[in-house]
């Protein structure tokens, strides 16, 4: 059995990938589609699978079903899009930093977006529509700032250290703004900072889809430099890749991917980290394949977390960000346990 397969699209595009990746991708796509249909069926109001089918196929559904679907579909679409974007961001950052612990939160990008949104709301009194723009600008500015500060170091560890320092600084500034407001504002920031898809609207999904549509082709075009970068900067340069330039491109791409998600839903910690880890376990180490797998894993994880959060503990709803964090800690402990067992077996 051959290890690689070539996917051909109408004879003009040929993609070579491992068989394992092709199988995983198909399975994850099927899983994601099934999860989305199930998520459409779950909620405070019961909707039958026939009604969902009628709504999806447009073959007729009653007004009640249509109204409920209008409330459910934006957050389901946002979970899949957002999960994929955060996962892609996490993987890109892990490549540029050559550090498996890298995550949008670690480089200060999430914190930059949070700070901009809170500053925009509490100090500038921006409307919700402008807060998304402010969050996006905050995330991008922070990424640029971190990049410029660590530029002279040309070291992946330097980037992480600067990112952590900037993240701590922005976290402190955010806290200062939060405690300046009244009690209602404080509890509101606290709720938002948990990462929730409750307030997602169709307009938010459109914004996220536009960003994903712009950034995914850029990622695809630039993904060939990922493998050389993983060998180290000297080796990458020897293979014709400019490490400094690619570092900047990937970091800004990572920021651009995560900022719209954070500005819409709040920070989703751990997702970028876990998705890339799980993707590597599933398909190995080829960066392009890990990227796509991580995006599908991230989409499924955020969708499951959001669905679980809105149905498991009714009438209490739990933000998806909290559920992802719980899963994240569990994944860490499991990974540590598996690695420990492997080390023991080797010795």
């Amino acid at each position, binding site marked *: 059995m051959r290890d690689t397969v070539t996917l051909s699209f109408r004879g003009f595009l040929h993609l070579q990938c491992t068989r394992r990746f092709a199988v995983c991708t198909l399975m994850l796509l099927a899983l994601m589609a099934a999860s989305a249909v199930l998520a459409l069926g779950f909620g*405070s*109001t019961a909707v039958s699978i026939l009604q969902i089918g009628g709504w999806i196929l447009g073959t007729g559904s009653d007004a009640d079903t249509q109204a409920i679907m209008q409330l459910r579909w934006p957050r389901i679409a946002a979970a899949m899009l957002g999960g994929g974007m955060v996962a892609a961001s996490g993987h890109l950052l892990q490549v540029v930093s050559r550090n498996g612990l890298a995550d949008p939160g670690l480089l200060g990008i999430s914190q930059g977006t949070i700070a901009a949104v809170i500053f925009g709301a509490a100090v500038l009194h921006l409307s919700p529509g402008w807060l998304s723009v402010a969050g996006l600008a905050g995330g991008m500015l922070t990424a640029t700032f971190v990049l410029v500060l660590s530029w002279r170091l040309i070291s992946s560890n330097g980037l992480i250290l600067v990112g952590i320092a900037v993240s701590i600084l922005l976290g402190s500034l955010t806290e200062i703004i939060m405690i*300046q407001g*009244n*009690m209602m*504002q404080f509890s509101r920031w606290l709720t938002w900072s948990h990462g929730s898809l409750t*307030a997602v609207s169709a307009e938010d999904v459109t914004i996220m889809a536009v960003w994903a549509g712009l950034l995914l082709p850029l990622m695809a075009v630039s993904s060939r430099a990922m493998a050389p970068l993983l060998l180290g900067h000297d080796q990458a340069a020897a293979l014709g890749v400019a490490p400094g330039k690619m570092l900047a491109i990937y970091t800004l791409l990572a920021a651009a991917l995560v900022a719209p998600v954070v500005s819409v839903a709040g920070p989703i910690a751990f997702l970028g980290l876990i998705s890339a880890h799980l993707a590597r376990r599933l398909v190995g180490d080829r960066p392009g394949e890990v990227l796509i797998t991580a995006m599908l894993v991230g989409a499924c994880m955020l969708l499951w977390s959001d669905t679980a959060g809105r149905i498991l503990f009714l*009438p209490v*709803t739990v933000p998806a960000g909290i559920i992802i964090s719980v899963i994240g800690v569990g994944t860490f402990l499991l990974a540590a346990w598996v690695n420990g067992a492997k080390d023991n077996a080797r010795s």
Partner: protein
Amino acid sequence: MKIVVALLSLLLLGSAAEARTVHDHDGHTVEVPEKPQRIVSLHDWTLTVMARELGAPLVGSTGRLAADGSYFIRGARELFGLDFSQVALASVHGQPDLERIRSLKPDLILANTGDYGDLRSQLTTIAPTLMYNPESGRSPFELYAELAGWLGRQERFDELKAGYERHLAHLRTLLASSPPPPSYAAILTNPKDGTIEVLSQYGALTTALDDLGFTRAPIMATVPVGTDRMRVGAESIGEIDMDFIFTSYLPETGSSEQSVLSDLHRIAPGYQSFLKAHASGHIISLSRYEIYPASFKGLDLVLSRIEPPLKAWAN
């Protein structure tokens, strides 16, 4: 006969469907029913309290999770005994559930800007939604009057206001014979970190005291604009040394009217010897969610509580 019934039905439907235009606090122009019959409130101690006091037909409200796992309506429970056997739970505070709100079939939704601004477009697909902004810096009772107009309950508001003004006039007669009027400081105590919060605006409490003619502690004027409180250390306790000190306690946490005294002792040991309000027994603590929300019942509770010490003061 059938024609008469049909005509009557049409007339009834017509009157129920009458609508009027309201401009909410976010600048939206909203068509609301002339007499809404199924109102859902999405904030307990502001909107639910006021709608309940105005006698508006509430079918649902947000609630909070108590330590024992039950749900309660902050403010409306303390003031009116409202609970979820009388209205439905629309969502848990801070965790909006749009489908649950929709299942209550509201004909009007009241939401506050801060918590539900992002969700307005989704809420308007369920029912006409009015955004109320209690954090605009305007007086809570000015906002309350506006809400009464939105709900078509201006008459009821005026009745409640007239009752309050009668009570106020009665107490003012006590003060008339004793110029200058007493001074007061409104505070909250934080014994855990040894600080005091100075309050510039505290709903019914500060409204009643200001209306009564009490003068404010100068430190209350230094609370930054845009917020209603300021945290200060124990060394600033002299700044609250007024004729009266008002604070509040949360019965649900086991606190009582006397808790403030032990809190102050922890924050500033020996305060008894230098706070004149202590010597005259004028440190007054009230149940927080009876006097924090904007309600005429809360105003009356404050006036009733202050009446005995005020009589003593006047003499």
